[in-house]
C-alpha cells in the first residue's frame, strides 16, 4: 500500500507551527543550557592560560561565537524576509521579525565583549578597524529593520517593507565589509589582527565550537519563543487562538 509522503508544508501555517514550536522549544532550551555549561567549563577550566595574553583571552569564547551568530542571523533574517516577500507567507515574515532582536543582541554582545577584550590587549576600547566598523554598521542595519517594522501599523505592510530593507541590507553587507577593508588597508590602519586563530590550541577550538553550538541552540529557542508570541499577537482574532488559550487556562 503506497503511503503518502509527509507534507512538511503544513507547518507553514501559523496555527500548526505554533504547536511544533512549542514542542521543540524545551529541547533547544535544555540543550543550550547543557552546551553553555560544557563550553564555559572548557573555557574557564580546561583551556590553558595563554602565554601572551594571560587570562583575558578567554573572552574569545563568547566574542567569536557572538560575532558569527550576528552575521549568520542577519542572513537568516533576510532569507526568511525574502521568502515572505516572494511566496507571500505570513509565517516567514513573522520568523524574520522574531530573529531581528536576537541578531541585534548578538551584534551588541560582540561589540561589547570586543571592547572589553581590546582594553587589556590593545590598550584601547575601540579602533576603527574593518571588522569593528562593519560590525557596528550591522548593528545599525538591525536597528533600522526593527525601527521600520515598529513604525508601520499595518502588519502586512510592515512585513513587506521590512523584507525590502533586509534584502537591500543583505546585498550591502559584503560591500560594506570589503569597502571598509580596502579603506583600512589603504590607510595602513590597524596593525593588530583580531583573530588569534593560527596559534590556537585544539582545546580552545573545542571550547569555541561548543560555545557556537550553545549560542545556536539559545538563538533557536529564543526565536521559537518569540515567534510564538508574535503568532498569538497577530492571529489573535482567529478561532484557534481563543480555543488554545481557553485550553491553557489554569
Amino acid at each position: 500500500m503506497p503511503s503518502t509522503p509527509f507534507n512538511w508544508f503544513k507547518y507553514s501555517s501559523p496555527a500548526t507551527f505554533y504547536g511544533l514550536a512549542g514542542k521543540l522549544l524545551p529541547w533547544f532550551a535544555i540543550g543550550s543550557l547543557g552546551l553553555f555549561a560544557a563550553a564555559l567549563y572548557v573555557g574557564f577550566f580546561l583551556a590553558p592560560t595563554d602565554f601572551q595574553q594571560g587570562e583575558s583571552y578567554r573572552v574569545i569564547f563568547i566574542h567569536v561565537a557572538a560575532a558569527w551568530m550576528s552575521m549568520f542571523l542577519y542572513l537568516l533574517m533576510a532569507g526568511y524576509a525574502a521568502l515572505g516577500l516572494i511566496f507571500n507567507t505570513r509565517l516567514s515574515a513573522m520568523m524574520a521579525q522574531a530573529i531581528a532582536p536576537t541578531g541585534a543582541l548578538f551584534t551588541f554582545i560582540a561589540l561589547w565583549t570586543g571592547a572589553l577584550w581590546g582594553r587589556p590587549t590593545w590598550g584601547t576600547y575601540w579602533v576603527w578597524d574593518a571588522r569593528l566598523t562593519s560590525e557596528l554598521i550591522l548593528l545599525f542595519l538591525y536597528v533600522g529593520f526593527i525601527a521600520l517594522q515598529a513604525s508601520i501599523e499595518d502588519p502586512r505592510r510592515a512585513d513587506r517593507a521590512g523584507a525590502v530593507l533586509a534584502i537591500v541590507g543583505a546585498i550591502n553587507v559584503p560591500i560594506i565589509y570589503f569597502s571598509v577593508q580596502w579603506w583600512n588597508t589603504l590607510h595602513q590602519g590597524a596593525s593588530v589582527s583580531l583573530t588569534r586563530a593560527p596559534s590556537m590550541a585544539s582545546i580552545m577550538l573545542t571550547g569555541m565550537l561548543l560555545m557556537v553550538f550553545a549560542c545556536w541552540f539559545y538563538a533557536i529557542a529564543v526565536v521559537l519563543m518569540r515567534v510564538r508570541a508574535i503568532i498569538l499577537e497577530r492571529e489573535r482574532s482567529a478561532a484557534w487562538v481563543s480555543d488554545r488559550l481557553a485550553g491553557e487556562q489554569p
Partner: protein
Amino acid sequence: MGSVLRWIIRRDLLLALRQRTDVLTTVVFFVIVVSLFPLGVGPEMEKLRPLAAGVLWVAALLASMLSLGRLFAADYADGTLEQMLIAPQPLSLLVLGKIIGHWLVSGLPLVVIAPILGIQYDLTGEPLWVLLVSLLIGTPILSAIGAVGAALTLGLRGGGVLIALLVLPLYVPVIIFGAGAVEASASGIGPEGHLSLLAAFLMLSLVVGPLASATALRISVE
C-alpha cells in the same frame, strides 16, 4: 520610453523651480554644516585640512538625505503617485526619472558649491578636482539609495529621522570611497581606484535603486 523619462524630469524640475526655497535650503544647510566644523574643532588649518574631504562628504550626505522626504511625499499627497503606479510604463523607469530629478535639484547644487567650501578648508589643485568629481559621481548614488528609504517610509510618522536611520548604513561605502578618493589624491597614491569603484557603485545603484524603490512604492501605497 525616453520621452516619459524626460517628461518626469521636466515635471520635477518645473515643480522645484516654482518652490525655489527647497533647493536653496539644501544648499544653505550644506554650507552651514561645513561652517560649523571649524567652530567646533578649532580654526587651525593643520587640523582642518585632513578633515576637509570627510567633512564635506558628510555634510553633502546629510543635506542630500534631508531632502529625501520630499521625493515622493508631494506626489503621494495629490494622487499623482497612484497614477504612476497604474501607468503602462515600468514603474522603475518612472522612479529613475524622479531620482534624476531629485539629484538635479538637491545633489548638483552641492557639487557646484563644494569647490568654494573646499578652498575654505585649504584644499587646492588635484585634491579639489577629485573632490568635485567624487561628489559628482557620488551624489546620484545618494539619491538612488535614498529613494529606497523614501519609498519604504512613505506616509509614516517618524519621518526624516527614520529615513536617516535606514539609509545611512547603506551610504557607508559611498562616503568611504568618496572621501577616500580625495585622501588618496592628497597622499599621492592617485584617486583612480577609488573613483572607479565609486563609478561602479553608481552603476549598481542606478539599477538596484529604482527596482527596489518601485517594489517599496507598491508595498507602501497598496
